[in-house]
């Protein structure tokens, strides 16, 4: 049994923190993409024609029910063959954003369904155009009530970013792996990475819970 080596921990910490920045960057960009795409899917679910609803529904179902890791491999190996070459980080962000957009779509849908019918009727009575009904009446109310749920998916995505290590992104886990491969000591770097995840995810989830109570839904 070996003991914990503090000086080695101090030695790998800067690399891990650099990895943390990449992790946070991937989470932030992935969230933006997931929020935007999710809204697109949610609006497509309400499209007047089933020629839009059905294909979008099928794609969303498929993406949500298959592993993110395999989707990342798919993007990583297949995109370059179609002539699109992205950096591993960009590929990872696309993968994360696409995968989580299928969850945020359901969140938006729940939010939109939760807007009282009277709001739709009022918009009709005021003969607001369709676009304005969405942007000025429905979406502001729908999005407001789903903010905490969206926040929870940001945390979930944050915890899924280590998968990007599998497509060679230098995130926290990859940094820990490389440090371990160099010195044959995995214990310290991986433990620190695990603790950093808890240290960030737990307070954030408390914040989301408080927000949820505040918004009173």
């Amino acid at each position, binding site marked *: 049994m070996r003991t914990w080596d503090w000086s080695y921990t101090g030695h790998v910490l800067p690399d891990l923190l650099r990895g943390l920045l990449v992790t946070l960057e991937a989470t932030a960009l992935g969230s933006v993409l997931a929020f935007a795409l999710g809204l697109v899917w949610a609006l497509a679910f309400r499209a007047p024609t089933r020629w839009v609803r059905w294909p979008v529904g099928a794609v969303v179902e498929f993406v949500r029910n298959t592993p993110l890791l395999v989707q990342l491999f798919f993007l990583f190996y297949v995109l370059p063959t179609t002539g699109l070459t992205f950096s591993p980080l960009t590929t990872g962000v696309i993968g994360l954003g696409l995968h989580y957009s299928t969850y945020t779509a*359901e969140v938006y849908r729940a939010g939109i369904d939760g807007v009282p019918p009277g709001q739709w009727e009022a918009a009709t009575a005021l003969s607001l155009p369709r676009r304005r009904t969405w942007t000025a009446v429905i979406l502001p109310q729908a999005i407001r009530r789903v903010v905490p749920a969206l926040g929870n998916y940001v945390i979930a995505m944050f915890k899924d970013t280590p998968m990007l290590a*599998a497509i060679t992104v230098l995130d926290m886990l990859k940094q820990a792996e490389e440090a371990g491969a160099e010195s044959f000591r995995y214990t310290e770097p991986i*433990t620190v990475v695990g603790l950093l995840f808890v240290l960030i995810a737990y307070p954030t989830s408390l914040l989301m819970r408080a927000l949820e109570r505040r918004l009173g839904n």
Partner: protein
Amino acid sequence: MTTGLWELLFKGLWVTVQLTVFSAALAGVIAFAAGLARLSRFWIVRFVAGAYVEFFRGTSALVLMFWLFFALPLLGWQLAALWAGTLALGLSYGAYGSEVVRGAIRAVPVAQREAAIALSFTPWQRMRLVILPQAVPEMVPPFCNLLIELLKGTALASILGIGELAFGAQLVRLATGQSAEVYGIILAMYFVVAFVITRGMRLLERRAKASVGRVPRPDLTSAKRVPPGAVDTGVGTVGGGSR
């Protein structure tokens, strides 16, 4: 692709199914143990269970898997890759599942509990004969969601070198170089397994609800799965509200 390569994929699929079953069994046991412990009368039991749940919901399943595989030897244990994978998935999804159990038990009307007390049932009888039969049917849909998340999580085990479906695909890709086909095929395989799980769980739910004389609510159980973060059962991917 030759038959040998197809065989590799189907072997991988079989390992994926095994991994899913083992870790789901472990997660189920943990979910009930931790979920019930969080409703205990003793604060210390509640506290320990709560700390476990918050910790394992807070960390990343993949990092946990790495930790069990690479870092646990510090404590003098070396786990086989398959068990490190099973344990990591079981521990993290058990933590999510415990919130489902807790939410469903708390959703049983208080009057049921009071009636059981009035009939002088012991706490164990109360739980076994009155509370759980009514709580379990409510747990089935969120457990179904978690089971699919777990199935997706098994792909992580490929990083530890466990020969499951994603790992098999990697080998086939190296052999043939046909990335699009290989990954397309295994994505479809995962989807089929998830579909079978959803159907099976729906059947289970109908039977569980029928056994307590209820009809499943069609809007909640069919077609669209409600994402864990948005439902009001107290179940979240992370810290989804606790009502």
